[in-house]
C-alpha cells in the first residue's frame, strides 16, 4: 500500500490542469437539455476532442490517450475542479463507447468511436419501455430480420438526451418467440431514420431531458447490431458494469458538490440551525469515503482483480449521497431554497434547486436502488432468491 501519486501521475495531473485552465469556458454553458445548450456543449466537446482530452482512457487510435483507470480518476478530479461543462454525450462516451470497444467489429469501431469522441454524433440510450422498467427483460420492442436489415417496431421511453440526440442504442427482441433475456439484440439506430418518431418528455424541472421514441417499420442495416444476434442481454450487461459506472459517476463529481456544500455552509453558518453543521460534515465524509472506495477498487482491478455484483454497492451509495448533499444545501438556503435563479432575491442560491431535482432521479435511474439492494442481497451476500 502506498497512497501517494507517482511522478508520472503528478505530471499527468499538471498537464490536464494546465489545459483546462486555458480552455474551460469562463461562464457556465446553457443546460444541455435545451437546443441552444445542447449545441454549446457539442462545441465544447469538439474542443476537448481536438486537444485529445475527450476520452483519455480510450486507445490512441480512437482519439484517446490510453490512460489507465487511476489516470482517469485524476482527469475527472481536475475536470470537476475546473468546473468544466457536463458531458452531453455521456451515454456515448461512457457507456456505448466501451461496449463497442469490447463487442464491436473493426468497422463499427472506426465508424462510430471517433465521431462519438468529438460529439459529432450524440447518443441516447434505449432500454426502458412503458412495460419494461425495473424488469428490463420484459422488453417488447422488436427488431425482425429482413435479409440485410432489421425492421424495428415498438416503443422506447425515458431515453436520456433523446430529445436532441442523433443516434440511439438499445435492446430489441430479434426473436419474436423468445422470452425474458433470451432472443434480444443490441442495435444502433439513427434517430432520423424513416419510421422513427421522437417525442421529447419534460422532466421534473420542465426541461426536455429525455424522450419517448416510437418505431414504425424503421429499417436498420444488420451492420448496426453490436455483438451476436440474440446475445444483446450479455452486451447490455457489460454496458452496466463497474467500469462504466466509474465513467458515468466518478467520485470527483460528488467531491465537488461536497466542497461546494461546505462553502455554502461556511457562508451561511450564522443563520443555520446547529444540526446542519453535522449534516454537512457527514456529507463531506461520505463523498471522501466514495473516493477512497473507488481508488481501492481501481487499484484492485489494476492488480488483476475482478469486480462483479459489488458494483451495485456504489450505485446506492452515490445516489443517496447526492440527494443528502442537495437536501442539506436547500436547508441551508432556508426560505430562498424554492427560488429559481432568475428571482430577484435569488442571489447565492446557485443551481442547488435544479441539482436537487436531478438528484431525486438518482435512486431511480440506472436500476432503482431497490433492485440494487436485491442484487447485493442475492449476489453479494448470497441470500436466497425465493
Amino acid at each position, binding site marked *: *500500500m*502506498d*497512497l*501517494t*501519486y*507517482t511522478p508520472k*501521475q*503528478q505530471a499527468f*495531473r499538471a498537464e490536464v490542469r494546465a489545459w483546462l485552465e486555458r480552455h474551460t469556458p469562463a461562464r457556465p454553458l446553457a443546460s444541455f437539455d435545451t437546443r441552444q445548450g445542447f449545441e454549446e456543449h457539442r462545441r465544447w466537446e469538439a474542443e476537448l476532442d481536438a486537444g485529445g482530452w475527450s476520452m483519455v482512457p480510450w486507445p490512441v487510435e480512437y482519439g484517446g490517450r490510453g490512460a489507465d483507470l*487511476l489516470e482517469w480518476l*485524476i482527469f*475527472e*478530479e*481536475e475536470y*470537476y*475542479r475546473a468546473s468544466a461543462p457536463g458531458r452531453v454525450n455521456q451515454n456515448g462516451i461512457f457507456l456505448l463507447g466501451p461496449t463497442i470497444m469490447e463487442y464491436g467489429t473493426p468497422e463499427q469501431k472506426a465508424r462510430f468511436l471517433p465521431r462519438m469522441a468529438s460529439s459529432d454524433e450524440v447518443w441516447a440510450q434505449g432500454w426502458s419501455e412503458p412495460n419494461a422498467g425495473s424488469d428490463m427483460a420484459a422488453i417488447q420492442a422488436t427488431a425482425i430480420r429482413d435479409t440485410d436489415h432489421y425492421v424495428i417496431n415498438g416503443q422506447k421511453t425515458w431515453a436520456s438526451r433523446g430529445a436532441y440526440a442523433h443516434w440511439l442504442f438499445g435492446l430489441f427482441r430479434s426473436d419474436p418467440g423468445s422470452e425474458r433475456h433470451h432472443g434480444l439484440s443490441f442495435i444502433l439506430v439513427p434517430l432520423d431514420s424513416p419510421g422513427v418518431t421522437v417525442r421529447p418528455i419534460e422532466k421534473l424541472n420542465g426541461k426536455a431531458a429525455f424522450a419517448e421514441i416510437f418505431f414504425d417499420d424503421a429499417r436498420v442495416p444488420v451492420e448496426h447490431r453490436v455483438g451476436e444476434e440474440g446475445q444483446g442481454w450479455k452486451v447490455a450487461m457489460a454496458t452496466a458494469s463497474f467500469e462504466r459506472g466509474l465513467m458515468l459517476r466518478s*467520485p*470527483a463529481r460528488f*467531491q*465537488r458538490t*461536497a*466542497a461546494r456544500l*461546505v462553502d455554502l*455552509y*461556511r457562508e451561511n*453558518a450564522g443563520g443555520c440551525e446547529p444540526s446542519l*453543521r*453535522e449534516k454537512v*460534515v457527514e456529507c*463531506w*465524509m*461520505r463523498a*471522501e*469515503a*466514495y*473516493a*477512497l*472506495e473507488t*481508488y*481501492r477498487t*481501481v*487499484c*484492485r482491478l489494476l*492488480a488483476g482483480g475482478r469486480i462483479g455484483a459489488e458494483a451495485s*454497492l456504489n450505485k*446506492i*451509495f452515490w445516489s443517496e449521497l447526492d440527494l443528502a448533499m442537495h437536501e442539506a444545501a436547500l436547508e441551508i438556503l432556508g426560505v430562498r431554497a424554492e427560488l429559481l435563479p432568475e428571482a430577484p432575491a435569488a442571489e447565492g442560491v446557485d443551481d442547488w434547486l435544479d441539482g436537487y431535482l436531478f438528484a431525486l432521479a438518482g435512486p431511480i435511474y440506472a436500476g432503482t436502488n*431497490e433492485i*440494487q*439492494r*436485491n442484487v*447485493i*442481497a442475492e449476489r*453479494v*451476500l*448470497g*441470500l*436466497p*432468491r*425465493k
Partner: protein
Amino acid sequence: MDFTFNEDQELFQSTLREFLARECTPEAIRARWSEDAAHSPELWRKLAELGIPGLLVPEADEGMGLDEIDAVLLFEEAGRAALPEPLIATAAVASRMLAEIGDRALADRWLKRIAVGEAIVAVADPVSPFVTDADVAHLLLLAHADEVHAVDPADARRVPQPGNDPSRRLFSVSFVPGEGTRVAEGEPGRKLWADALDRGALAAAAQQIGVADRLIETSCAYAEQRHQFGKPIGSFQAVKHLLADCKVKLEYARPVVHRAAHSVARGAADRPLHVSMAKLAASQAAGSAARVALQVHGAIGYTWEQDLHLWMRRAWSLEQAWGRDAFHRARVAEAVLAEEARLGPGETFGGGA
C-alpha cells in the same frame, strides 16, 4: 498509488483468522466472562507465538517490526472473533509509546517482554476517565495533565467499574504522580497522548470493521436457515434490504479505515482527521450491523443464550473506546470547516497541492 495489501499481509490475516476461529470460540469467550479477568494468559501466550502483541515492537527488541498498515487487517480479525484481550492498549498503543518516550531503560525493560507475551500494558484513554484491563496489566501508562507516568499497578488504586461488555473490563485508576513515575511532560507528553489516541482509535475502528463483517455474515446465515411462511426469511425483500444497507455501510467504511492506517504508519499531517473519519465510519458500520442483526434474529437474538450479543456488545463498547462518535465528529468538523481546509476533487491524497 497502490491501495492494495500484499500477499504477506493477506496471508498473516488468514492465519490469524483460522487461529482465532479455533482458539477464540464463543464458548471460550463465555468462559472468560465468568472469570475475574477477560484476559486469558494461555491465549495471550499463543498469540505471542504468532507475534501479535509485538507486531509493532522493533525487531531489535524481539518484535515483528511491522507498521499499522500490516496490523490493520489483524485488528479486523480480532474484531471478527470478538477477542476479549488487551490488544489495543498493549499491541497498538503501548509498544509505540514506550519506544517513543525516549527513555531507553524503560523501553529495554518492557518492549521485549511485550513482544514475547510476558507483559500486558494498560494505557489511559485520553478522552475517557476509565482504564481498560488495568487489573491484568504489568505496567500502567497514565496521564497527569500532559505528563506521561509509568506506574507499577501495585502503586495504583484500581476500582472496577462493571460495564455492559464483560470483554471490556473498566477501572477507575488513581495514583500519586511523582518524579519516580513521570517519563514525559510538556510538548513531548502532549504528542505522546495525541499519538496514543490516534493509534487506539485506529485499532478500535479496525476491530469494528471485523465486528460488522461478522454480524452481517451471521445474520445472513440465520436468515437463510430460519423459515417462516414456508420460506427462508432471507428471501423477503424487507430482510434483504436491511442487510444490503449494512453491507454498503461496511464496504464504504473499510477503505476509510485502511487509509487511516496508512496515515498513521506514515505519520501524515492529516492523521487525526483520517483517524476520526475512520472511527466514525467503522462505528456506524458496526452500530447499524448490530441493530439489524438483532432485528433479523428476532426474539432468539434477544436472549443471553444466543451468541449474537457477544458481537453486539463489542459493537457497542468499541464505540466508547478511544473517542466516542461525538468526539471524533467534532474533530472532523473542526478540520473540514477550517478556513485553510483543502477540500474537493483531487485533495483526498493531497494530489492538488
